[in-house]
């Protein structure tokens, strides 16, 4: 499945555009502020990442949106339906919990039938939805098997399937790839991208940078219950004036030659270590080819060159002063 492919059985979009609005959420446990003024919106068809280390407030935020926790303050609404109108609101949410919340002694079909019935699906409609969802998740051939016989990746997929039966406008996915192998993770990515392509909004929490970077159009970086920054990768990088470094190795290098090269590139900052030079191109738009030409003119014979683009890791490090911890 490629990014943007439709998932069988999930082709019909709901009549209204799904969008989540979260405004100034607060939640404390005693003296600990788990969520402290969190606000963001998600558009229909958007995969929105909530990136932060364990204990940052991701799960508390998602639990409040899923009405599992009562906030101390703030508002949440989906397409204008507030969380206080619980049943209607809940029907618009598909919740994929961090844990594998399945009954191991029920079959895949029985698990999905249970969840579907809680959403008032019944009869032929329920049977069809269960079959469609299992097919979409690649589990149709294991429909009658007990969940206890499933691999970790299969359980994760079934965990996601439970959130899709009632065709929600918003999917809340709380670290849905925790503990799965790379192949299963890639399959889950395809599923998520397919769902977004259908127009469903997805709130995706993770503490894996590469997941957020690959999947999410926009990402919010959260730590200690506060959102530190929100935006696309480019916006986040721009917001912190992140370094865009070129590392250059030469046969011979002097400070004078390095300074000459930096001047030719527009007075960029640089550091030299023996015959290695690092140039920070954050404020320029020059390409690697231009760097090589400028080096030649500065009398530097380039042996190797590499570009280090800023990533979410860079942004996170800049914003929090630490790396993501597991």
């Amino acid at each position, binding site marked *: 499945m490629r990014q943007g492919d439709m998932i069988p059985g999930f082709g019909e979009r709901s009549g209204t555009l799904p969008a989540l609005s979260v405004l100034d959420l607060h939640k404390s*446990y005693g003296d600990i502020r*788990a969520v402290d003024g969190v606000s963001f919106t998600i558009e229909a068809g958007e995969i929105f990442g909530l990136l932060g280390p364990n204990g940052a407030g991701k*799960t*508390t935020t998602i*639990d409040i949106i*899923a*009405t*599992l*926790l*009562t906030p101390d303050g703030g508002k949440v609404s989906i397409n204008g339906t507030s969380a206080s109108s*619980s*049943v209607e609101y*809940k*029907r618009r*949410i598909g*919740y994929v*919990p*961090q*844990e*594998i*919340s*399945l*009954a191991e*002694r*029920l079959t895949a079909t*029985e698990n999905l039938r*249970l*969840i579907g*019935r*809680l*959403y*008032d699906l019944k009869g032929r409609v329920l049977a069809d939805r269960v079959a469609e969802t299992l097919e979409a998740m690649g589990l149709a051939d294991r429909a009658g098997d007990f969940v206890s016989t499933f691999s970790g990746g299969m359980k994760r997929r079934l965990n996601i399937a*439970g959130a899709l039966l009632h065709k929600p406008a918003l999917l*809340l996915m709380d670290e849905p790839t925790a503990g799965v192998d790379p192949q299963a993770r890639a399959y889950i990515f395809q599923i998520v991208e397919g769902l977004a392509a259908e127009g469903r909004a997805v709130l995706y929490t993770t503490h894996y940078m590469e997941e957020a970077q690959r999947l999410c159009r926009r990402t919010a970086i959260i730590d200690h219950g506060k959102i530190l920054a929100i935006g696309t990768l480019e916006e986040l990088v721009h917001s912190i004036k992140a370094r865009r470094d070129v590392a250059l190795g030469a046969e011979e290098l002097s400070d004078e030659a390095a300074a000459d090269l930096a001047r030719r590139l527009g007075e960029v900052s640089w550091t030299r270590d023996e015959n290695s030079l690092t140039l920070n191109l954050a404020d320029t738009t020059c390409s690697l080819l231009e760097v090589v030409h400028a080096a030649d003119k500065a009398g530097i014979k380039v042996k190797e060159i590499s570009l280090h683009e800023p990533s979410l890791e860079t942004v996170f490090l800049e914003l929090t002063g630490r790396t993501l911890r597991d």
Partner: protein
Amino acid sequence: MRSLRIILILAAVRLRVLSRMRAIVAVLLLPGIVLYTVFTLIFSGPAGRPFRVAVVDQDQTVASGKLIEMLEANNVVVVRTENEDAAAPLLTAESAKELIRKRGVFRVAVVIPEGYATAPDMLSSSLHKGVDMYFDETQPMEAKIVTGILQMAAGRALFERFGAKLNFDQSSDGHKDDSTTEPERMLIEVNQKGVSIRRMTIDARHTFLAGIVPMFILFGGIGAARSLLDALRDGEIRRLLAAPVRPHHVLLGQMSSALVVAMIQCYSMYVYAWLVFGVAIWAIAGGLVVLTLATCMATTAFGMFLAAFCRTSEQLDAFGTMIILAMSAIGGSMVPRFVMPHYMQPFGMFTINGWSYDGFIALIRNEGFTGIMVPCLVLVGIATACAVAGSILLTRRLTQQPVP
């Protein structure tokens, strides 16, 4: 209506999961049967305990006084007046019989007839007439035990009389006393007269069935509570609550499945008791269903309350086991309440076991629905209180605190 449907869906799934755990099913059913068997066999014989026995002394002699004294020395609480107040009218043979027949105040009454002192035991002379004993025909075990105690009392009186006889002639106390005959060779004759109250006989197989059943379904309730806590820990409850389901649906769904399991537990024990010990469960079938349902409601709701109250399985096990053992001991599950000291017996009314026990005994006494009405109402009241309190606690816990 939707709520009821959700509760039934959750209960049905829980039962389906449970039915696939065969080891658990065996654990649910067997221990109760085993313990019931053991207790019944152990306590089928006489047991030492303090008995409340109505005593009517029509003889009013030293010999009759000595017999009463010896009864008291043999762990019998002798009651001589109608309401145990010294100023109240003395018991008569008729009033004692009425208290056995109608109000169940006593199960045994001993009447020492006038002329008893003429021949206080069978060793004293052929004129010995013995004493009369009235007893509740439904509970003959206690009459047998008191008869034994009377023999011991007579023996001790005889022994003391032998010792006293050496100087008895020198120290007559003025009482009418005809005990100066030659040494006796036999003990006292007890003329047992059953007081018919048209009830079934109550013995160990009934009392222990009445006691073991609530104790074991209380433990079953703890098992259901543990599975609720496990579901909380594993995130199953979070997924349910993200759907249009409320915490009280989850609690009542779990309680409903536990209720079905508890009923199966109870009836497996009843059928066993019928097959092996001949307990006439079919003669009280209607009342038994109602009482069992009320008891199971109370025990499962109590389990759910504990699940909502305790944070972890470890807390639940420690706290739950302690409470259940205490309730079972006080409520008569381990030892029938009539065996306990008199002051202890009312405490049984603070337990689920006590009310269930009383209801069962009422059924065995053929008191029918009238006899179980109060116990059932109390048990349903306990169930309602526990379910409401559990729902409130669980809702507060799930929506205000992070799920462990």
